[in-house]
């Protein structure tokens, strides 16, 4: 799954909550109002698209602060 597709999913999840979409990858999740439930929804939607559960390191989650971090995280999880 491409990084642009993951970003589009994030935008959709944000917009469904009435929030602004991502402008650039340096934005923080806090600025965007991208919360843990939004994170869960993106993960679920990725799993539905790829037809399997995501595989990831929990430790990586703790370092996420920006959109770039979120995209890196999901890209890695999809690729594992």
């Amino acid at each position, binding site marked *: 799954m491409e990084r642009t597709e993951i970003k589009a999913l994030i935008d959709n999840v944000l917009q*469904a909550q009435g929030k602004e979409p991502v402008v650039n990858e340096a934005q923080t999740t806090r600025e965007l109002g991208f919360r843990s439930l939004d994170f869960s*929804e993106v993960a679920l939607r990725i799993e539905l698209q790829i037809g399997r559960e995501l595989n990831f390191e929990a430790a990586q989650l703790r370092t996420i602060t920006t959109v770039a971090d979120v995209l890196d995280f999901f890209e890695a999880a999809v690729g594992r």
Partner: protein
Amino acid sequence: MPAPCWDNEVVLNGREVTWSDLADGVLEVAEPVVFGVHDVREAWAAFACGVARSSDFALIEAERLTPQYITELTRAGRWVRRADKVIAPAVPTTVVPGRITVLTSGTTGPPKLVEHSLASLATLAGTALPPRRWLCPYSAGTYAWYQLAVLGLTVPDQTIVPTGVEEPDAWVELAASARVDAVSATPTFWRRTLLHVDSAALRDLHLTQVTLGGERVDQVLLDRLRECLPKARITHIYASTEAGACFAVHDGRQGFPAEWLNRPLGNGVRLRIEDDRLWVSSPFAATDEEWIDTGDVTRRRDDRIEILARADESFVNVGGTKVDARSVEAVLGEHPAVLWCHVRGVDSPFTGQVVVAKVLVDPTTSLDEAALRRFVGARLPEAARPRIIEFVADVPMTAAGKSVV
């Protein structure tokens, strides 16, 4: 013990036969026995013969008799008869004349054998009913099926028209040709019918009685039935295999009146609520215990007690917040285009669980996921909002005519 009306009739393959005709078959079998029945006629004949001989019996659709199920039944001291094959019990047996054992589905574990009798199943014995021709789309051997079978056998002038549960169009055709004027079925059966059958065809049946049982009933369905069948009395029944039939509600509203609590109802049933759960004491129960915990979670809304869900399947844990899935269903169901929905939690490594939903919407509307999310978003706290709403084309249904989820 109610006296059977042997001259009442059952319509089998377009032909009316009396219960005494059905009971006339030869049924020489060791007891206690479980009949695995292959077709409608075999089911009704087995029941008629069993009652006529005060046999100790149960019946179940043969296709549900898996090897594991048969093993469990023989371990419980039952003979199992399927077509010409007879399987002996694995332990010594005790015959109890007149015992009618209701078998639960056993889809999630070993079957439960719930012991009733004609008397405990005859919840309408002595009730004066107008002559009616009842469509029976219940699966043979379920509690609801026995309820209709016993109604047909013990209440004067009641005719039973058995059918399968699969095709809504087919039952409407059968009902029209057999002059059915009353239908008792699960809410899932009715939702599918309203989805697939033209409302004019339903109205043309001139139903005077519509009964819903076997599952929780919601207001949206009751309203749709009222709109579609304005001349029929619409009744929903609260019953369980263990507690028996407890009460029937005729006022077109979901739940039951709060004033029914803590006092005997006309049929001797008593109801109380403890920690939001419904307890019943019923003369039709299959147990000697005075009070039975139904496991159903309730909530009071003004003068009404609403039944939300089974206690053990109701809650989703979203990041430590307990979300009542049935309350979320209630909100989804408030949308006029939603015909059916099911809400559950799915595991999420980030929040424990998140709420997801399946919905069936009226195909004549253009409701999409975004619009439905806006609708629930305005009515539910964030943790309770379904994060994914899957639109399904039909209500998934079990062999017993209930929703599979």
